[in-house]
């Protein structure tokens, strides 16, 4: 119970800290959203607009602590306000509209990347010294070091533009209306493939190498040898004895990655004009869109924390040592 309370305490504390940082950060930046709005138009709107915009955006010159209290109060009441970038569209709407795409694309890609990376890591470690074990980790090292926006552009240009294998942009063809028809779903998948490949290719290496390292460490453990001595099948040994233990140290990393999914994959989304949250986040930051930033940051913090929490549950499932009692 006290453990649970402590976790809850940490959760609340983290959210508060994220909210506070998120309050402070944009206000550290010089200027205000109204000024930046003028910048967006390179001065094409009249300077008289500044005052009007400030009025619209409710930019007060009240003392910071007062603004902070108001801000916290609104947060607690679940009011995320109106986005300034998209004024007067509510933040919740901006997020709600982009979130499914981001979660769909980045989430799937992350899960794929983790799944494939882990599997390949297990496989190469198990066949240590074999042909695949020399090829795959080296390749993984290379792909992990690729600047992924660069890769994205190359893929977009080569596979999309030159060879027409993939669409150039968007989450689905602009002549379709979203529906649950098979055509639409396939269309969505087709559009997601290239960005997903980019994400997977550039992140799979890390998982592969991490898992391979852990596996090799685990394969040196006595219980694996003891299992082998008992005549267990290779499959059972590889999965239930080696991999199951080797995966434990990576779980926190998975949690982080899964949590950060809701932050979107900024550059990938931009390159492929994918309607996800990544670009919204960039815009929010660049436009000092306090409410949108606040919404996004809090959502990310929340997602990471929840993912961490879930992983802790999974951890307990995978590692009996964490289920109460004193670990040895």
């Amino acid at each position: 119970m006290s453990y649970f309370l402590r976790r809850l305490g940490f959760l609340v504390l983290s959210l508060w800290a994220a909210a506070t940082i998120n309050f402070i950060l944009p206000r550290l930046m010089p200027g205000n959203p109204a000024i930046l709005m003028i910048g967006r138009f390179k001065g094409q709107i009249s300077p008289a607009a500044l005052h009007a915009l400030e009025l619209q955006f409710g930019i007060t010159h009240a003392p910071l602590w007062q603004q902070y209290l108001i801000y916290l109060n609104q947060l607690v009441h679940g009011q995320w306000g109106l986005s300034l970038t998209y004024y007067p569209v509510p933040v919740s709407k901006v997020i709600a509209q982009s979130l499914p795409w981001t979660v769909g694309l980045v989430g799937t890609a992350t899960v794929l990347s983790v799944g494939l990376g882990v599997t390949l890591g297990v496989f190469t470690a198990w066949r240590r010294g074999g042909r695949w074990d020399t090829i795959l980790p080296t390749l993984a090292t290379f792909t992990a070091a690729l600047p992924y926006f660069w890769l994205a552009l190359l893929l977009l240009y080569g596979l999309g533009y030159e060879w027409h294998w993939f669409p150039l942009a968007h989450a689905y063809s602009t002549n379709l209306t979203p529906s649950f028809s098979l055509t639409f779903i396939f269309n969505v998948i087709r559009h997601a493939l290239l960005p997903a490949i980019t994400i997977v290719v550039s992140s799979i290496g890390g998982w592969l190498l991490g898992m391979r390292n852990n596996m090799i460490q685990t394969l040196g453990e006595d219980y694996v040898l003891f299992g082998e001595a008992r005549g267990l099948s290779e499959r059972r040994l590889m999965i239930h004895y080696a991999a199951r233990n080797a995966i434990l140290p990576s779980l926190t990393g998975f949690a982080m990655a899964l949590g950060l999914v809701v932050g979107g994959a900024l550059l990938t989304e931009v390159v492929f004009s994918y309607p996800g949250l990544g670009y919204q986040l960039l815009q929010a930051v660049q436009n000092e869109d306090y409410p949108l930033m606040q919404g996004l940051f809090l959502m990310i913090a929340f997602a990471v924390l929840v993912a961490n929490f879930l992983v802790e549950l999974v951890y307990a499932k995978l590692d009996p040592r964490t289920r109460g009692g004193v670990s040895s």
Partner: protein
Amino acid sequence: GCGQSGTTTAASNAPQHALQVIPGLNGAFQDNFNPYSGSALSGTLGLIYQPLFYFNLVGTQVYPLIGKSYQWSNNNQTLTVTLRPNVKWSNGTPLTPADVVFSFDILKKFPALDTNGIWTHLTSVTAEGNQIVFQFKQPDVPFAYFILGQTYIVPEKIWSQFSNPATVTNQKPVGSGPYLATNFTPEVYTYEANPLYWGGEPKVHTLKYLDYSGNESATLALASNKIDWTDLFVPNINKVFVSKDPQYNHYWFSTGGTLFLYPNLANPLLSNLAVREAISAAINRPQLTNVGEYGYEPPATPTGLVLPPEKTWIDPQLPAQDTHFTFSPAKAVKILENAGYKRNAQGIFTAPNGTPLSFTIQVPAGWTDWDTDCSLMAQDLKQVGINATVEQLSFGAYYSDITTGHYQLAMSWSNMGPTPYYLYKSLLAPKNPGNFEGWSNPVTTAALTQYRTSSNPAVQRQAIYTLEKAVAANLPAIPLIYGATWYEYRTQYFTGWPSASNPYAQPAPYNYPAEAIVLTHLTPRS
């Protein structure tokens, strides 16, 4: 009049190709057709809501829209607009003078909507039959541009119901313009021709506005000949775009507002005309054009006038050296030497009182073409013995610095309007927000007043001539290059686009309300 007679004879069985538009780079679209929102979807202003008139900024035309004509009286303190009869809202109800009056009164009621400061100039707006009467506090003829051309008319019935019009997303807009918003998704939204449009149903039936956040994917779409109309910045446009389909692919990068190097005149060194002249002579403007701006933004001229659109305003008596700049480091050096500046040990000129000519040039970080321009200028200035370092600041810092005079040199924009007055007013009127440099001079102030208070074109022209000379001679801000309006279009499906030879309206899809003028001029290829 520019009304189009609707022709249905060409209607064929095959549905018309939808005109594909990329209205600039955006994050996913948000459903917002509020004419008072700075982030309303492209097309809201122009296609749906219209002002009384459209003033062409790249030509000389004035298009009557909801208004039919206007007239000054009462010593230029009263402006009377006659409305076009039989204008209907898209829901079928007639557009009444009361709607027009309401559209102005709402700005008074909600100052946050009054982005042009209409009510700082007006005392009242009233309807008299088919006419709307605007009472000015003081004569200000050029301000009519904001009243006639920049204030959009909304139906009173709908907008009077909102407790705060600024926070409405207005997803089902009812306007008087040539198009109706019919379908929205975050990736694409659609306009369809308004059959009730007072000018007749436009010939282009369907417009699709596509969302692209990535420059690369947008350009690839353009290069794949999938886009009919856009305003993307495309380097090497002939190769990247035109050559992909030379028959149909075209572009026209019209010149926009002049970009200046603003000297802070509160700085004792920069308040010295010789220093400004030397700086101006030392800058290699063609290099800025070619290296910094991919050859798209031509060098500006000493008067600061935007050419060619404003070429008719040029004083024919203007001396030759005031019609174009010559790049001459030698001249720059000579000017400084003549003015008593001496080089110090580092080769930097110093004022007679010993302060070296050493300046920072402020520029917003991330405006990379400007960043490059500034670094080129810094190199140019170093060549002639003026030390300049570029300071890239976040836009907020930059903007507050230039508006509060906390800078030495800064590159920035200027404002543009239907006549050069708007530029000069913003640049030269004392205490004007656009007068970053802090210029104040009785001659220019008098000339501005002369223009403002007269509706006589000849008088106005004389005022402009005075201002041109003053600017060219005094360099209150140093003109650099012209901004450009990116605009690419395809003629495979639609013809009648504005072009350099026929600049009938500002051509880019983000130019409002010009885009409505363009779209109503297009005809589908049969």
